[in-house]
């Protein structure tokens, strides 16, 4: 289906606000990852972040930490993740990005990794431990293969916001709250001022993630941002229902997507 198609992150933002879902590859199995990504797309997910499992996910809260442990305990490796994406690409053109700590990518070999991303139409990489200041680590190779490095902007970024935003490509991931990933009952960060700082210097879409769980939160975020990112709430559904999570995922993604249209 994706023969020589050039899938872009911008596709996810072209029809209004984007709903971006995350899951950890290999949780509960690689086969289910393929099915769940397709189900999420069917339910209205505009872009899917696929987590490559890592032994020490330092930026994650308990929900995603446990997903990493489940994925690694059934020996999911980077090649398995690429295989899942190959299977997804047989049926879907949904924009995909990787969420991965940098060490698995370094170990795999930057050239080999991003070449494979290009072959499978993976549009970008989000790396929680590769800040703006260390971007040169992979910049040359990602540019060679046309892969976007998704920049993260945090509540503490302050005067760094515009420096980061100016060079951003793909989309900007605005971290809603201090701390690790995980569902939160309220978000106190002044997102509006962060987003207006971003908008002053770039047209690259900005999506907000970390802690978003309920349709009400998504609706509020979508009023100020170009997209809403949900990770832990989705992973939690997979944790709860394991191999039988498909229906639950579809219902949840629909309920979220409906509020941000």
């Amino acid at each position, binding site marked *: 289906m994706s023969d020589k198609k050039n899938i872009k992150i911008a596709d996810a933002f072209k029809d209004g606000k984007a709903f971006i879902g995350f899951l950890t590859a290999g949780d509960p199995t690689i086969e289910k990852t393929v099915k769940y990504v397709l189900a999420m797309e069917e339910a209205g997910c505009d872009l899917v972040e696929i987590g490559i499992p*890592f*032994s*020490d996910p*330092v*930026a994650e*809260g*308990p929900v995603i*930490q446990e997903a990493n442990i489940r994925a*690694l305990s059934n020996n999911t*490796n*980077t*090649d398995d993740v690429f295989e899942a994406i190959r299977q997804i690409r047989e049926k879907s053109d949904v924009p995909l990005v990787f969420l991965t700590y*940098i*060490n*698995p*990518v*370094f*170990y*795999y070999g930057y050239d080999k990794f991003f070449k494979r991303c290009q072959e499978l139409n993976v549009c970008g990489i989000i790396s*929680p*431990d*590769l*800040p*703006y*200041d*260390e971007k*040169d*680590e992979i910049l040359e190779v990602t540019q060679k293969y046309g892969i976007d490095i998704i920049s*993260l*902007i*945090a*509540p*503490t*970024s*302050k005067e*760094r916001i515009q420096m*980061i935003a100016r060079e951003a490509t793909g989309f900007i991931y605005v*971290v809603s709250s*201090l*701390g*690790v990933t995980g569902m939160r009952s309220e978000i106190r960060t002044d997102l509006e001022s962060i987003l207006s700082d971003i908008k002053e210097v770039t047209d690259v879409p900005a999506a907000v993630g970390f802690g978003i769980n309920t349709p009400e939160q998504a609706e509020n975020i979508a009023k100020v941002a170009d997209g809403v990112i949900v990770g832990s709430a989705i992973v939690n559904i997979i944790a709860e229902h394991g191999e039988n999570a498909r229906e639950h995922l579809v219902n949840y993604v629909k309920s979220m997507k409906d509020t941000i249209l």
Partner: protein
Amino acid sequence: MSRGRFGVHGGQYISETLMNELLNLEKQYNHFKEDSEFVEELNTLLKEYAGRPSLLYYAKRMTEDLGGAKIYLKREDLNHTGAHKINNVLGQCLLAKKMGKTRVIAETGAGQHGVATATAAALLGMECEVFMGEEDTKRQTLNVFRMELLGAKVHTVTTGSKVLKDAVNDAFREWISRVDDTHYVIGSTMGPHPFPTIVRDFQAVISEEIKEQIMEIEGKLPDMVIACVGGGSNAMGAFYNFLEDEEVQLIGVEAAGKGIDTEFHAATITKGELGIFHGMKSYFCQGNYGQISPVYSISAGLDYPGIGPEHAYLHDIGRAQYVSATDDEAVEAFEYLSRMEGIIPAIESSHAIAHAMKVAGDMDKDDVIVINVSGRGDKDVAAIARYKGVELYE
């Protein structure tokens, strides 16, 4: 090129959330290290509170027994709280206080760094929370109680393999969540820049003193300095002022656990590969596809899968050599020094002693070896007893 590099190693591979904090830390550190009031205050604490300078002791019986080089012991075990960790902790806590922080957090393996941080926090009137892997809280029950006694909260880490690496993970997670009033007192020459530099500078007092003391006693520099290496702070401290003195051989001793050909070791340079983890590029014990490997050592303080970036660099350029000692060799050295000199060394430091025992006999009688006895072994007595199959009731 990014900040804080030692050759290709180092850098700041860390959450964006912490970047401004790290930049500010670097700025504040560069300011205060030149601030005479700060330097004076720290030096007074080191002298009057920690008990510096620590002694450089000629180990006569050990020297005679091994029959080769003259052996001197740098007695970091005599510092207040029983290890070199206090040097770094007093520096960082004082710096944190000057920066307006009211709370410190720390990771700990054996408990020495946790105890030291709890101590400095008590002294400076700061709130303190120490992250310690559940496995280590079992190995080091007394240190857990000691930290609580000092007013710190001990946070038992139950994620991952529940040891030092996981304590570092959770300490970072806590810092990302609460960075405004909190400073993370990293205990070794590791983590994102500026930590490897700050910790090295605060530990460099060890080699500064060794140099002065040995010049006074022997009238020459040592031929060899030996220190154990986990993250690498006591070794970096013992090496730093000798880096320019090419004639001084610098040896770091890693934990070989049950042997470097088994899965049970923590010999990062001997067996590890280049990687990026805990904020730095360096060598790490890692498995297929770049997953960080579980590591093992009898010593909770050396049970870490990485090594500080400056050590990785010193290895690359050949300025320092990195070797390893097994659990068995370390336990033998622990008992040897206890019997031979009446000094019970930390099981971490025993790795350095074990290496000296291997090489001293083959050296010339005019040669001088300095071993950094980074800590005292009281904390290890129960674990050594268990290792030997002796049942103790603490």
